[in-house]
């Protein structure tokens, strides 16, 4: 019984930490969708770019990977603005399907560009103040410093985004544009600039998430797919365009992904062979997509959704 509680507690903590990073990954997707109703299929590729940005600049500048995060944010913001002005702005004049295929094409392009430049070998940060360190917070509970820092900084980035949107004039323009683009124009708001800002924010936040992840998650040109899917599930669960929703849903999904050991502990408790639990481990993302699917059927607007 004790083993089960311990497994549950561990899963909760690990899920919370992972979930906060998932939430940050999803934040940009939900901001961009909220402001302009565009679903960015290349979102995971933005994350990949952020991962490489941290991975490559840390040794180049001779600084700790954590210190390269502002640089990753800058790269992500730049990439976002570039994509908006170079591609998305033009797609907006076409039918919705053009936006779908357009960002899908962007995904393939960024992925293959990365393959060309970086090769297919997975890479990870090997050196840094956080790497390899951990804290023992209780009997049998060990927290990796990289994950702890990633979660804390994710939370910080979330707070920053909330502050910007809720407390600043720029944020008001963002909210107004997402509610009614035409009305926003009549208020004297440059919706064109708001759109670019949404892409900058979206790119920056997901790139920072990438910079945090690469400390414990290897990057390769195809790493984006998994995170795009997780971000889609998070945004669908939390509600399209909802920032609070992204936070709550990110944590929920983090916990789902970290839940399998609890199942193992339960099996062990009833005397069953733990090997049976193995299938559960390989199915953890299936559960995420199952929830994604269910939420789309039961509550298509998501938990905190306000957009139809």
């Amino acid at each position, binding site marked *: 019984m004790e083993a089960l509680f311990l497994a549950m507690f561990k899963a909760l903590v690990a899920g919370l930490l992972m979930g906060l990073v998932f939430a940050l990954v999803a934040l940009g997707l939900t901001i961009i969708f909220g402001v302009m109703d565009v679903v960015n299929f290349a979102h995971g590729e933005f994350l990949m770019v952020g991962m490489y940005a941290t991975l490559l600049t840390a040794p180049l500048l001779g600084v700790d990977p954590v210190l390269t995060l502002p640089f990753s944010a800058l790269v992500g913001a730049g990439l976002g603005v570039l994509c908006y002005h170079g591609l998305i702005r033009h797609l907006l004049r076409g039918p919705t399907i053009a936006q779908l295929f357009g960002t899908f094409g962007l995904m393939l392009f960024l992925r293959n560009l990365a393959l060309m430049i970086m090769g297919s070998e997975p890479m990870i940060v090997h050196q840094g103040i956080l790497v390899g360190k951990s804290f023992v917070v209780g009997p049998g509970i060990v927290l990796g410093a990289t994950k702890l820092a990633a979660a804390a900084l994710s939370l910080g980035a979330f707070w920053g985004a909330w502050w910007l949107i809720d407390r600043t004039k720029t944020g008001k323009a963002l909210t107004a544009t997402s509610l009614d683009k035409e009305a926003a124009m*009549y208020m004297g708001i440059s919706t064109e600039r708001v759109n670019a800002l949404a892409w900058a924010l979206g790119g920056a936040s997901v790139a920072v998430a990438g910079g945090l992840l690469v400390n414990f998650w290897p990057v390769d040109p195809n790493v984006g797919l998994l995170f795009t899917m997780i971000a889609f599930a998070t945004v669908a669960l939390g509600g399209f365009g909802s920032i609070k929703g992204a936070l709550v849903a990110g944590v929920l999904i983090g916990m789902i992904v970290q839940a399998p050991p609890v199942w193992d502990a339960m099996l062990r408790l009833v005397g069953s062979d733990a090997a049976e639990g193995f299938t559960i481990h390989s199915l953890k993302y299936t559960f995420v997509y199952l929830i994604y699917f269910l939420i789309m059927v039961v509550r298509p607007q998501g938990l905190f959704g306000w957009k139809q």
Partner: protein
Amino acid sequence: MLEIKDLVVSYAGLPVLQGVSLKVEKGQAVSVVGSNGAGKSTLLKAVMGRARVSSGRAVFRGQDLAGLRTEKIVRLGLVYVPEDRKLFKPLSVEENLKLGAFIVDDPAQVQGRLEYVYELFPRLAERRQQAAGSMSGGEQQMLAIGRGLMSGPKLLMLDEPSLGLAPLMVSEVFETVRRLRQEGLTVLLVEQNVREALELTDHGYILQTGRIRQEGPSSDLLRSDMVREAFLGM
């Protein structure tokens, strides 16, 4: 203040405005009246840069509006209150009003205008925390007008403010417009309520299927046979 010259607008090849000209002088209240589909909203939208103009032009305070983005036009002091009001429905009354003052940088000025609008519409003051979308049609129209006033417009263009309102509300809205013009605000009013609109304004234009059929001092129009027959049922 605003001069529209030979404005032509077509939607998908179909002409909606076929060369409309009109003039609004500073301090004047001008009405454009006409029945459904005459092109009244299209005229205002074209001025705001929201409809593609094929030919003709609109000049506001000496500046040609051609090719200007809507937000730039607003910053010139030309404010449009659309017929579907376009409120930010989930936001509160006060948040809507503050967004109306988006282009105003001085917080003291924003505060002053907020108080002015609340004095103009005490009902909005009572409901300042209520979500805009949950208010009655009349209250929403007041909010739309109030929001339009928040940036301190030089010319306020109202598109059918009486649309869909109960008679009592209609007269309240028109009363407000009367007060605004007495305070010296320049107003361009688009209406289907021909009699009230003409009684309220100095100068009127009758728009029919994309053309100005008749124009003149509102009092003359009210007496003209064409208006009496076509709109006043006499």
